[in-house]
């Protein structure tokens, strides 16, 4: 009998393959978690909400990349690192409590019934408002959504403090380096 006809050969293959791939995955996981810790090159620290954020084309990388600029306060307040972390943690709780991910997508993950929110802070809909004005308009929208298109956003009883936290979350999230996703967001000439 050839060894390929022996089930134990294939059993050994299954065990070896699984173990090897699992070890590789574990090693990559350790590195990835280090790289996506807030404050690194890929994921900004939470107090980025005190700065202006834009999304610009990088010729070196051949894709759009978030750019962090000078001071642009959110709700007229300069948040310390601790305050920003607490505010954004609350924002995530708001997003989960209302199950936003079951209508919207975040980094393209979620449901497809409503727009992607990865760069919502930078959306041209809000482009006419700058800095604290934009944040305030977005918070008011969350508390009392007006109709933007054929598909209305429901009123989810978001309180003012919750709305501010959610907006802060969206601003922080817009500064995460997602390897160019979504492509050409808000680019000139693109509606």
């Amino acid at each position, binding site marked *: 009998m050839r060894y390929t006809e022996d089930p134990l050969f294939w059993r050994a*293959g299954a065990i070896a393959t699984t173990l090897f*791939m699992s070890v590789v995955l574990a090693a990559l996981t350790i590195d990835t978690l280090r790289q*996506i810790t807030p404050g690194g090159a890929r*994921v900004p620290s939470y107090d980025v909400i005190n700065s202006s954020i834009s999304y610009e084309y990088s010729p070196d990388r051949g894709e759009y990349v978030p750019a962090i600029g000078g001071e642009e306060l959110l709700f007229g307040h300069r948040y310390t690192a601790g305050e920003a972390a607490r505010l954004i943690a609350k924002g*995530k709780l708001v997003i989960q*409590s209302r199950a936003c991910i*079951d209508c919207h997508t975040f980094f393209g993950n979620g*449901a497809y019934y409503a727009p992607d929110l990865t760069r919502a802070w930078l*959306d041209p809909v809000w482009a006419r408002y700058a800095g604290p004005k934009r944040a305030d308009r977005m918070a008011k929208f969350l508390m009392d959504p007006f109709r933007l298109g054929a598909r209305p956003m429901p009123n989810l009883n978001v309180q003012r403090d919750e709305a501010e936290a959610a907006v802060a979350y969206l601003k922080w999230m817009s500064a*995460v380096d997602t390897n160019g996703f979504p492509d050409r967001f808000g680019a000139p000439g693109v509606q």
Partner: protein
Amino acid sequence: MYRSQRLGLKYLGASVIMFGAMIAFGVLSSIYYIQPGFLVNIFNFNSAKIIHIDGLVIWLLMGFIGSVYWFVPQELEREVDGIGLAELLFWVFCAAVAIVVLVLIFVQYGGASQWSMWFINQGRKYVEAPRWAAIGIVVVAGVFAYNVIGTAVKAGKTTGILTVLIADLIPLLVLYLDAFPQLTNMSQDLFWWWWLVHLWVEATWEVLIGCIMAWTLIHMVGASRRVVESWLYVQVALVLGTGILGLGHHYFWIGTPRYWFAIGGVFSAFEPLPLLGMVVHAVYDAGSRHLQAANRPAFYWTLAEAFGNFLGAGVFGFMMTLPQINMYSHGTQWTASHGHFAFWGAYGCGVIAVLYLALEKSRGCDGIDGRAWKWSFALLNLGILGMAGALLVAGIDQAFFERAVGGSTWNAYLSMQGRPWFIESMWARFVFGLVFASGYAMLVYDLLAIGKSQRGAIPQPIATAGS
């Protein structure tokens, strides 16, 4: 019949009911797309969708659990250890699912507080069930694992298939622990969330359904144990060999490093290869038996499993897996097209095959056939093909206009949703959803009736050995 097999039948019955709930909320979800403003502020889209996708997970899990409770006592020729506790927990599980669904329907969401996380809605896709219910699932799953492992220990023996199942159950259960954390950093949240979702549906669930299909082949057509075990090892090697690092195809756009493009893209591109092997195996088995089997519905649903898996997961997945395509297909109806087809092909068909096999044996028949199962087979598969096709058209339209041309802004999204092809695709998806639902109705009718009448079966006295 062993008590475990009676429990298996209960789980399989519950899975059919959850399958129906999933379909009902799926049809409801599809109406929101074709009726703007439908039930807004009364029962929003996200509430309907949550019950639809969580219902998917629960009906399949119940089907898997039921299948294992059905096969294990036959495998070890003894009653399952701890069966009394398992029987009690079945009712606890059903009650918990019912409570969670009722809360999701009538309460829907809470404030931004831990209370909401614990008792209403955790708001993470597929694992929205509140924490108390997630703890309940861990308990049920833990007892299930104890039942399986404990029985093997008490019996002092195991088999190849059972050993693979036990080895698979442990990571499957550990991965569910991602249903609990509430992480602030979305990159980190999604990183771990994909460990749960991908390493379930593209790794541990594949091995689990492989074990269930191995048992099905043994009991349905008398396949040689050595042959199915050998094949199972081959499949585990190939599926986990490609699927574990294929996880990386979810790590292109969530803030994780760029090396995932190469790793995720390469390994997920290889994922269809073992699925082609499954198609060959299915045709070999079917052909060597000249398409004859005593239990014809189980046989044909097993065939559908192999083909559906290759088409839904393999072909539809491959289309969108390379990063240069995925940049635009990501987070569109294209994803939903692949998801619907893949889940059906990889898992839905397999659970239905076991349903028919278990019914045949429990009704003491020596083979079953009929007309109704053919109608349900045709309607369910036609329904899923139609839905997947409609969502594919909508998804490609969306990837082109919203993402590639429009830059994925709100305006690009909203204007795209009003495009004629998109709207027509949503209508087509709704219509094929109704076709699918009618196939489900026929399935339920057939499951209730088959084997009970002279026309469909050759009833035999039920053997009482092994109780």
